[in-house]
């Protein structure tokens, strides 16, 4: 599937992960060598597996254990840490902030993932044209991705300024003055859409690049054949481009969903900029976790949040995998 890639393209991203093939053994090899052959992949995988165990599995198991304790961040050592059973979980499910954070997360994911993916495909199609300056536009669309999210959030919170902010003026001009200035970051119903807009603007360039790589890996002879058969541009897109982009699309959808769930920097910065909307109208799970664990020092409670959050994201990823079966033809 990569044979049609033009090597001169500066941006190229592998869209399908080469599947890990376990040591295929030929029948004529003696058994000791066979055993060695079986072990070889483990040796190669060892550094990666060690790091995974050390930095992902172990911390998660720790979080699981801590979620049943009253562990604090900094404390008087004399009172120690105790197992508190399900207390953290009971408090969590009883906490309005938790449900609000979950709701905000889902709202964000449900809106942002499809829009951002569709927009990315659209941009990729645009900059894939053989036109003068296409490369410049590619760079321009990618620039927000290369900008630190903290900077993006600060700049956008200025754009969203009430009264005379840029966004307000834009809305005023576009609506011929019908829509008055809004207080984007303080209005509880507008703050999430505002966050979505800036997030899509910042993130769309990355998915665009992935789609671009996918587009460029489509063999040109397919289009030629389609043209010979008299397919219009629209038909070419529907019956050649889209099916050939299936794996890319699945990759984009799953990664965008996971990124969207991790929403933190933007909302954290908005939370710290003057007086924003009521925090429950835009606080996300990760932000709640950081605030409870780090600012409020409730490690046990924050661990319980992270365990619940992990299970939710895992479940969603599994469902996505089931619904969107990737074609593994390498």
């Amino acid at each position, binding site marked *: 599937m990569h044979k049609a890639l033009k090597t001169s393209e500066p941006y190229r991203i592998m869209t399908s992960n080469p599947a890990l093939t376990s040591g295929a053994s030929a029948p004529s090899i003696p058994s000791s060598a066979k055993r060695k052959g079986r072990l070889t992949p483990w040796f190669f995988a060892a550094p990666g597996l060690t790091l995974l165990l050390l930095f992902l599995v172990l911390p998660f198991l720790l979080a699981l254990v801590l979620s049943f304790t009253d562990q604090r961040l900094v404390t008087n050592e004399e009172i120690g840490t105790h197992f508190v059973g399900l207390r953290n979980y009971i408090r969590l499910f009883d906490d309005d902030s938790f449900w609000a954070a979950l709701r905000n997360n889902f709202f964000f994911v449900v809106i942002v993932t499809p829009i951002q993916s569709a927009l990315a495909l659209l941009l990729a199609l645009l900059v894939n044209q053989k036109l003068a300056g296409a490369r410049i536009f590619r760079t321009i669309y990618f620039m927000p991705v290369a900008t630190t999210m903290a900077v993006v959030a600060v700049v956008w919170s200025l754009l969203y300024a009430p009264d005379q902010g840029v966004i307000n003026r834009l809305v005023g001009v576009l609506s011929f003055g019908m829509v008055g200035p809004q207080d984007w970051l303080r209005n509880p119903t507008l703050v999430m859409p505002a966050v979505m807009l800036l997030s899509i603007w910042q993130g769309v360039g990355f998915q665009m690049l992935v789609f671009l790589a996918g587009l460029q890996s489509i063999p040109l002879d397919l289009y030629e054949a389609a043209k010979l058969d008299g397919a219009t541009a629209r038909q070419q897109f529907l019956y050649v481009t889209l099916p050939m982009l299936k794996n890319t699309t699945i990759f984009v959808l799953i990664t965008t969903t996971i990124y969207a769930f991790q929403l933190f920097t933007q909302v954290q910065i908005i939370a710290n900029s003057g007086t924003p909307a009521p925090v429950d109208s835009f606080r996300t799970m990760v932000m709640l976790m950081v605030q409870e664990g*780090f600012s409020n020092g409730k490690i046990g409670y924050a661990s319980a949040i992270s365990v619940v959050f992990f299970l939710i994201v895992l479940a969603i990823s599994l469902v996505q995998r089931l619904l969107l079966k990737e074609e593994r033809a390498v």
Partner: protein
Amino acid sequence: MHVNKNWFVKVVGFVGLGVASGAALAETPVSMWVHSGPGPEREVYAAAVKSFNDSQKDIKLELVALPEGSYSDQINAAALARKLPCILDFDGPNVYNYAWTKKIIPLDDFAELKPIKADLLPSLLRQGTFNKKLYSVGQYDSGLAIWGNKKLLTKAGIRIPAKVSEAWTFAEFEDALKKLKAAGVAYPLDMKFNYGFGEWFTYGFSPIVQSFGGDLINRNGFKTAQGAINGPEAVRAMTTLQNWTKNGYVNASTHDDGDFVKGTAALSYVGHWTYSDYKKALGNDLVLIPMPKFGKKAVTGAGSWNFGITADCKDPRAAAKVIGHLMSSAQILQLTDVNGAIPGTMTALKASKNYAAGGPLAIYAEQATEHVSLVRPETPAYPAITSAFAEAVKNIVAGSDVKKELDKAAKKIDQNIEDNNGYPVK
């Protein structure tokens, strides 16, 4: 000592080793964190450090100024890594938590600090004491009242109270807001919402709750916040605050520190630290108005930033010397002259021009001596209390249901107390 060192350097020079670093070798480094306050305050700190380093050769004081917004998070992170600086500057009510978690050590045994303890303002002595030991000393106490623009107030026909006994009543205060709004002042009362979410919300707005008769926690044993922070008095206080923003008396979304200076506000509800800026801008039109009696009595905030020595400090005696230098009358007055705060020792207070009877800031001192000021809750649970209350304030001014928010705050505080086994003290 000084002579000895010169002699040492000379000997080294004579022997011809050429290593002239003798003077630097003997210096003990002492690190100090301060929150980076307004510009002039920062300059005074820098000058204080320089004067200390120039005055002696044994200790080298290194100053690190950190932004106030995430200051206590930084302290927590450093405490966790056991990398706290020797001397820590922190906001007063955190002392109980820091002492309870053993981040800081008692100061009673340092000879350099004994005379300072005896000279400390009673409010600061009370603020710095936990479990019968003194853990922190402050160069100043804070003053919280209302700055007024005399020209705008007179034009709107409003009586200006000149001393604590003449303080406005609640009705008079709301009437003043209404009159000012009618006279064309865009947002009559500036409450510094541009400071954002943080300690200001608790320091600034808890006196309103207390004046109405409520409090942040039941101070009898500090075991529960139920019935205090969400009691009917607290609900009334916070509903009042919410109404001020709804009626356009207060601009809760201001990002501008200069609303009062520009005349878009006629009253500025803020602490002492704005004094020099306001004086520069308004000159003789600047009046200091005592805290109104929202309920039965007027209440104002007390306590301010102060210094402690951390448990990670390798040379606490050197740190005590530094604090001794910072607590000298000359140093205190240099700082309070620019930030307008109440000088932290009796000696310095007597020497201050701003706080003499009839001085421009005398009302702050009057509020402190006439028991108008109330320290924030003296319990290790304070960080939990302030974050819960500040979040409630933030949500309430943004329009959330008052009772629901305060109930939530009460629950959070009580859970925190339960999490810490009621903060036992040995």
